[in-house]
């Protein structure tokens, strides 16, 4: 057997700051070992890849409830009189849309050339904003945020004192409420993409799986006990492996794979995250994106479906008859659909079919709109 040709590198954008430094564990590291996790190095962190079977963990999240340690992600509190105007200048989406406390917004953070530095979530908080960015882009993002906020009244506080757990699946909210009955009313009242502060904790109805669920920020010292309580309530610990297959079925981008600093958000399925109005809001990257739109966007993001045998993988060439070539940016076997699916960047003129160079054989695939799966069900024709 050869060494696996495409080892799972859920995040290839590890910052140079972590090179040569031994990976560090999150506040839940011991909890993972106790739960039987297989640990891998991910963006400088020792993280669970699975606890026995990635496929079983995937299925549990679609059918019941699973939890992911996402403490490696970077939580950032933003305060100061210029916080709003600064965010309106650096994010492609507009924080002015955040109409009520705890409301969340998904946005790209762009270079002046109109390419993607990172994707993130920003929440409206009592005294400003809270932002969550990717682990693999930590140093780069922080440097960019510090640089662009220089000379403004903006205070950035990195919250490394918090752990974060994503509890996802149709029964996730019920199970969290059974562990925290005193919070049940407030949690059940959350709209999708809204969070609420509970003392030092923060509970948001967000996720990365295509299922209902919560992402919960917890003081690091309290995280292991909460993790144990959730296990007792029947929430299965799940690793990064299942997290990747779930987000791919849900048609969600992964930074460093589906987009990066060489890719425009218009070509990575992020057009909906750009707030063009008001036209007077001149965010970083706007001029480049407007020029790209005016010239015609050459490539677009689509879903690919292979109903036969074989697995579509990142990096494989996509051939679109009469229109040129594209590339698979994320591919996997879909545990829910029982065949392979992929996210690809292809010529905008693509129709309903394409071919993928599958280990030397041009193989026909169907081209579909993303996502593939939502709330446990297949959603494409």
């Amino acid at each position, binding site marked *: *057997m*050869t*060494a*696996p*040709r*495409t080892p799972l590198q859920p995040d290839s954008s590890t910052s140079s700051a972590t090179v040569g430094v031994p990976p560090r564990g999150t506040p839940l590291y011991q909890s993972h070992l106790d739960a039987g996790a297989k640990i891998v190095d991910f963006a400088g962190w020792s993280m669970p890849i699975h606890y026995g079977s990635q496929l079983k963990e995937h299925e549990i999240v679609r059918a019941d409830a699973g939890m992911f340690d996402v403490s490696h992600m970077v939580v950032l509190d933003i305060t100061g009189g210029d916080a709003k105007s600064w965010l309106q200048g650096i994010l492609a989406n507009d924080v002015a849309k955040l109409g009520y406390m705890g409301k969340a917004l998904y946005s790209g953070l762009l270079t002046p050339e109109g390419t993607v530095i990172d994707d993130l979530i920003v929440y409206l908080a009592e005294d400003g904003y809270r932002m969550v960015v990717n682990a693999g882009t930590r140093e780069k993002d922080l440097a960019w945020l510090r640089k662009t906020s220089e000379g403004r009244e903006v205070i950035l506080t990195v919250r490394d004192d918090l752990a974060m757990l994503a509890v996802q699946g149709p029964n996730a909210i019920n199970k969290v409420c059974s562990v925290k009955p005193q919070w049940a009313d407030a949690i059940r009242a959350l709209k999708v993409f809204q969070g609420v502060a509970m003392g030092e904790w923060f509970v948001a109805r967000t996720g990365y799986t295509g299922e209902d669920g919560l992402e919960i920020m917890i003081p690091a010292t309290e995280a292991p006990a909460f993790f144990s309580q959730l296990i007792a309530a029947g929430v299965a610990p799940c690793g990064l*492996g299942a997290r990747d297959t779930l987000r791919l079925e849900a048609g969600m981008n992964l930074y460093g794979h589906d987009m990066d600093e060489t890719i425009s958000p218009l070509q990575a399925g992020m057009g909906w995250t750009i707030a063009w109005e008001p036209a007077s809001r001149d965010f970083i990257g706007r001029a480049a994106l407007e020029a790209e739109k005016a010239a015609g966007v050459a490539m677009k993001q689509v879903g690919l479906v292979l109903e036969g*045998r074989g697995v579509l993988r990142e990096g494989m060439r996509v051939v679109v008859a009469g229109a040129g070539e594209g590339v698979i940016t994320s591919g*996997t076997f879909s545990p829910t659909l029982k065949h392979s699916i992929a996210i690809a960047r292809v010529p905008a003129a693509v129709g309903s079919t394409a071919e993928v160079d599958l280990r030397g054989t041009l193989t026909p695939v169907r081209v579909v709109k993303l996502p593939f799966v939502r709330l446990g069900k297949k959603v494409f024709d």
Partner: protein
Amino acid sequence: MLDIPAELKYAASHEWMRLEADGTVTVGITHHAQELLGDLVFVELPKVGTTLAKEEQAGVVESVKAASDVYAPIAGEVVAINTELEAGPEIANTEPYSGGWFFRLKPADAADLDGMLSAEDYARELGA
């Protein structure tokens, strides 16, 4: 936890071999190999009757996270394949040394087995 049965022979490319009473050799992938790949989702096997040279590609395993080629550890003719793997590739995860076997060879030269790794050699190969 390394599971390397003492009675089998091994190739550095993570195949195992068992000499059967009728002189054929059963081939599969090791416990370590399936662990490296994770959950298997497709297995492609050679056709019965194919003659394989030593180290020739004999099939493919695809897991959720990766694809990998499987080789003939010794030269021979394929006399049987485990069709159960085509419907249930996960058997190679759960029973790599029994129900999860891949194919059976009639060796071109039975002495070729002697040159393969012992369980001890293979364990050393894995740095165990």
